[in-house]
């Protein structure tokens, strides 16, 4: 994993859920740098270094993005679509992390190019376990084109 800090972008409107995810990640010491945004618009602004995220150094390109589907302003699926149709962003692994297990959501997410689809378990132990394995898989095992270059 080298010395480079691994960057995770978390797009989640529910503050409690954000806390839970952060706890889970911290508990397993995953991710050196975690950025949280609470709606779709902010997520896109972060990725494209717009608005208050215009400082590219302070807001680096994430190695992994955790995306909730129901986001204010810009829906999670729209965010996903924009990332996957943007030439510079489409290589970022996007993991959908949502409470919805509706078939329509799952199929649409994959249609738009989601790399993984996870449903938040109500049981925190399982939630924590999932976050840990998610982190290991995507940040330790998975080789992304970007990390390969570096």
């Amino acid at each position: 994993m080298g010395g480079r800090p691994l960057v995770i972008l978390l797009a989640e409107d529910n503050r409690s859920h954000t806390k839970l995810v952060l706890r889970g990640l911290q508990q397993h010491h995953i991710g050196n740098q975690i950025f949280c945004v609470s709606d779709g618009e902010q997520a896109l602004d972060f990725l494209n270094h717009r608005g208050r995220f215009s400082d590219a150094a302070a807001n680096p390109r994430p190695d992994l993005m955790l995306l909730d589907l129901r986001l204010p302003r810009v829906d999670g699926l729209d965010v996903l679509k924009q990332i996957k149709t943007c030439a510079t962003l489409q290589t970022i692994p996007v993991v959908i992390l949502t409470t919805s297990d509706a078939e329509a959501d799952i199929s649409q997410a994959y249609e738009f190019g989601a790399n993984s689809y996870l449903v938040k378990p109500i049981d925190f132990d399982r939630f924590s376990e999932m976050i840990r394995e998610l982190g290991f898989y995507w940040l330790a095992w998975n080789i992304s084109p970007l990390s390969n270059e570096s």
Partner: protein
Amino acid sequence: MSLFVLISTLLRLVVLVWAVVLWRRIHDWKPVCLFLCVILIAARDFAMMAGTATTSGDWSLEMTADLRQLPDFGLSLVMLVVVLLLDRELRSGIETGSLPKLQAATGSSRLMKTAIAVAVTAIMASAGVGWLAWNSSRQAVLNSVAHESLSISRSLANHVALKLQNSGDPAGMREKSLVELRNTWNLTEPPYEGSYLCVVESPGRLALHSKNEKMVGTDVSQVVVDPAAAQPRTVSKLLASRENLATQNTNFRGMQQLAGYTYMPSIDSLVVVHVPAKLVENNVRNAAIPWAIGLAVIAGVLIPVSVTLLHHSYTTAQGTAQTATSALGESQERFQSVCTHVPVGIFLGDRDGGCIYINEYTEEILGISPRDALGSGWTKPIHAADRDRVIQAWQAAVHDGAPFESVFRFRREDGHDTWVFGSVKAVRDDHQNITGYVGSVLDVTQLKQTEDALRRSEERYRGFVENSSQGIYLCEFDEPISIDLPEDEQARRLSSDYHFATCNDVFARMNGFESSADVIGLKACDLNPTPKDDQFSRSDAPVERVLSMIRNGYQAADQISEEFDRHGQRVVFSKNCLGVIEDGCLRRVWGTQLDVTDRVLAERAMQASEARFKSLVRAAPVCIHEIDLAGRLLSMNQTGLAMIGVEQECDIVGKLFLDAVCEQDRERIAALLDDARTGKASYFEFTSSAATGSRYFSSSFIPISSSMPILSSGGHVEKLMGISQDITERKRAESERESLIADLERKNAELEQFTYTVSHDLKSPLVTIGGFMSMLKRDLAEQNIEAAHDDIAEVSGAVVKMKQLLDQLLDLSRVGRVISPPAEVPFGELVNEALELVSTDGLRLNVAANLPVIRCDRMRMREVLQNLLENAVKFSRNQPEPCIEVGGQAVNNGHSPVLFVRDNGIGIDPHYAERVFDLFEQLDGSMEGTGIGLALCRRIVNTHGGRIWVESEGPGTGCTFFFTLGD
């Protein structure tokens, strides 16, 4: 003989002979002239020949030199040409048959006599005229011989003088000259055989005499040398004058001498050549006689032979004409007279078939002159349609020597046609050789016309009967029926006692027979067997029909008669008949009949169909109407009248169909009406005009043509049939059902969205609670009380949120289900009620004064206002000068007013203006609230039939929520 002379002579001989023959044929002065010309020239030639023969031994040389021969030759040619012209005239005369000019042919013996007579005449005439000519030219001949003598003497003298010129002995000159002269003299050839040479010395002594030596020394000085001259000279005088002289009258020793005197100076003497005149004359005669005899012999033989040959040539050329004329002989005139007066065309042809004579009657028929008809001229007036046929037949007849008979037309130049019967037979001589043709032409125009008229009439009758589409028949009664009999008796016999005398095939087939031959001869009863089927009801009994015919003067017109044919099949005829009455008795009946079975059947079927159709139209539960091509109503059934509330059909007849159509549909229906006029049926729906109650109709136009009940394609559209049905009720039900379905679909979609959203959003607090409960457990185990408090706060927050969610969801679901009856509510009151439920501390409120009264569910509308106001407060609270405004925009013409709630809060990106009304949609996740409020508002407003929307300039500029209740 020179060629010229020979040719000229021969030509003249030819002319002479020809002229004689021509004269025999043509009694005219021209051949005679020619004849005389030739005789004159011949006489002149005789004379000339005699003349030349005297002076020269070879007189032909003289003749050659004679330039007269050239004009002679020319003249001969001219005469030949004249003869040729005459010959041509004669031949054409023979060809064209101008008989009067032609002389009857003479027999060959007679001709020979004539020829010999001509020859003798020619010779005698030639000889006589030749002798006269000789006498007149005798002196000239003698003179010419005298000059010849002079030239001989001169040439002798010159010869001797020249010979002795160089002797140089003048003394002996005389002797030598005399000797030389004597030696040179040798002229003994005829006509000089009797001539002699003398030399007379000066002064008059005879020094030399070639014939008589004894005469030498004789004094001849006193001899007169030319006694015929005006001043007769003697020899001595001539000698003294030293002249030369040619004389023909020297009376020397008692004999007339022709003499030439040449003075010879060298010996001073006269050299004299003497020729006895008698001798010359004798010589000429002797030379001419054999020539004349030869010519006479030639003429005597040649002329008759030539005449005979020429005559034969003319005879051949004259051919049959001559023969026929000759055969007719003395009866020629009688024949001519007959030919002129008989009313039959007569003509004669030569043996080659060429016409040589036509009589006046033929001339009249042909319309051309007899001259034009000659040869093949008679074929020209033949009618163009018949010409080739006739000419071919004629040529064939001539070729075979067979009789020719034909009926054909002549067309005169004035266009008059004459039908003739022409017949021609060959005339043969004793050896059966055809010598010509004699024919007659009979005018058969009248006959032909009558025959044609008869034939046409017959053809017309036959054609009429055979080709008529009607059955035609003739019934003969076995016994004539007296018209004085009682009607019943007449009728009985009329309908039974006859047989068919004639009929056409149509009639036979009408009655089930194959041809007229099967019917002719049949009796009345044979035609009417027992009936087989009885689908018709009889119009009237046969006996009654016959009676009516009798009463109608034995004729009937268009009687409909139902009968049975031979096979027992029922047939219907339309009959016409006419009885023929002779001597008070009905003898026969002519009749025609037309098979109208199909027509009658069709008419009956049509009537039945019409009746069915009418009752159908009357009873049909739909409006059935007819429209003419101009779009005017022609008729309408009772159902239709009831539909549009009209009592009498006459009230709507003539009115435009389109007037009953509402204005929006009129153009469309007019187009369909146009289509229908072109034969296209159409089905459509329309709304009737307000005058007829704005009802919905389903209708159709069906084009009707005259030939077919209902037009399928093409044809001529006569009118339109329309069928209409009132479908107002059905339409209403349909529209209700549609709106119901739309409503249901909308609700379904909403429900689906709702379920989906709820499953997500309700799970969300559960995840929070579950998560933090585990967290709490861990924190408590770690004795981390502070963290435990936080965990508990998170859990209780989630619980509160959950409760809120559930409450509002219930509320929302109730909106769709429960609705209180609407009431008139002043909007201002509602605003005040709502404001009581919302904490508006620190906010400036601006509620408009004259707010309208609205019709709504009061409680629900208050809920809307409450939500909107809470929203306004929530998003403008953090502004420096928060201000909330409530008002209404007046809208005209009965529409419901537009009401609004405005704030100057954070505003909304116009991009999300629609989304804010969606369930659980929150633009700002950090704000409290469930995302149900605006969804609830929209639902209530929609339930009232209105709509709600938000307008904002963008973030930070505040926003205005508008809503209406109804349109």
